[in-house]
């Protein structure tokens, strides 16, 4: 581990894009101009000086060095993050954590199930599959949001749906009177997918309860636990497995995750009050 692992580097905000009323995507540039490599699913620690530090998943295209971060403003630190203006600085450490299994999924169907802001950590994996389209079989993207106005990356969802061998289905929990799309939780979309369990790798990200329901449904449909991956989120401090802040059972989410094979942690998702 490098000696300066705990020292955030000042990156510059290049752009801030509003995705939904409370969610923004920040594009950052490093101080020396050299973008560090990251893998789909990894996160960085983002520091707003004087406010606090947070783990935020990278939502950009890893093959293009896209250091973008999609942040939902829900508290003091996230509000400070999304309030940065182009030209201002943020502290960045990372990238950290385990990636989505885009290598082991080669030659297989890829099923991506995202809920809410959970689409952001999965977007780099989607970019990777689409960039290397011939190396994968079908790509299925299932997305659930709270309401129509909370749908992330709306234009990209529409453009992904036009790609070869790609099925995109989205739904909202509450539709309102002017919504003409699907209404219902994300698990209900699975019945519209012709799943070939033995040939499928599934990647799931969203609130823990949603992931538990999705995992239960996928396993019930014959998917082996070792072919199912989930991305966990907890409060973190050091991000390198030293402080124990993000300990979850016998795992540190920062170091052993955030992406876990379901076969390793499935029981933990069912454990009360963990």
């Amino acid at each position: 581990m490098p000696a300066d692992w705990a020292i955030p580097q000042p990156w510059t905000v290049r752009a801030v894009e509003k995705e939904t009323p409370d969610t923004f995507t920040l594009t950052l540039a490093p101080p020396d101009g050299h973008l560090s490599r990251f893998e789909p699913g990894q996160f960085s620690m983002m520091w707003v000086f004087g406010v606090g530090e947070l783990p935020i998943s990278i939502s950009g295209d890893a093959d293009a060095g896209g250091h973008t971060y999609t942040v939902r403003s829900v508290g003091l630190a996230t509000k400070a993050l999304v309030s940065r203006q182009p030209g201002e600085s943020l502290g960045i450490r990372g990238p950290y954590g385990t990636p989505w299994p885009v290598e082991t999924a080669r030659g297989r169907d890829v099923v991506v199930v995202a809920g809410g802001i959970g689409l952001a950590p999965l977007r780099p994996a989607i970019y990777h599959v689409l960039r290397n389209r011939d190396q994968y079989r079908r790509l299925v993207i299932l997305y659930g949001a709270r309401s129509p106005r909370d749908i992330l990356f709306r234009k990209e969802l529409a453009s992904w749906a036009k790609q070869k061998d790609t099925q995109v289905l989205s739904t909202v929990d509450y539709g309102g009177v002017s919504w003409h799309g699907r209404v219902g939780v994300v698990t209900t979309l699975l019945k519209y997918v012709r799943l070939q369990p033995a040939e499928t790798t599934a990647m799931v990200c969203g609130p823990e309860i949603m992931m538990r329901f999705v995992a239960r449904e996928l396993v019930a449909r014959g998917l082996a636990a070792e072919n199912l991956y989930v991305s966990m989120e907890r409060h973190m401090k050091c991000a390198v497995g030293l402080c124990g802040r993000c300990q979850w059972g016998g795992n540190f989410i920062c170091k052993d995750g955030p992406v876990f094979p379901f076969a390793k942690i499935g029981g933990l998702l069912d454990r009360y009050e963990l």
Partner: protein
Amino acid sequence: MEKQTLERVIVEHPFFADLESYYISLLVSCASNVRFEPGKYILREGEEANEFYLIRAGRVAIEIHPPQRKPIVVDTLGEGDILGWSWLLPPYTWRFGARAMDATRAIALDAKCLRTKCEQNHDLGYELLKRFSQSINRRLDATRLQLLDVYAAD
């Protein structure tokens, strides 16, 4: 639609997967092919529940009608789903409305015909109840998850 075609469509619908052919032949005698244009109501809350539907294609909105407001869509159904179980239980009236969102094709099963056959043949009735129970259970699970409002900010 000819009887043989109806039978094939019913056999291929996921709701009746692996159902014995004897029961299928009983169902076919209560079945008919139906189509609904986009925006057309398939059933309305409070009306008699005289059939249920196997959706073959299209999307259907399940709605509640608040007074003096437009209907609220609480769920949507599509290919492979079933629509309607109020025909199973007294007072046999629809508890929600259902409207075709797209051009929708379905098989309608006459409820009075089915109820009569289930009373005459309890094995058929039990088989149908098991399948409807699974469907109701899945919808109840989904509704509970929906109620949790899991994407709300903490």
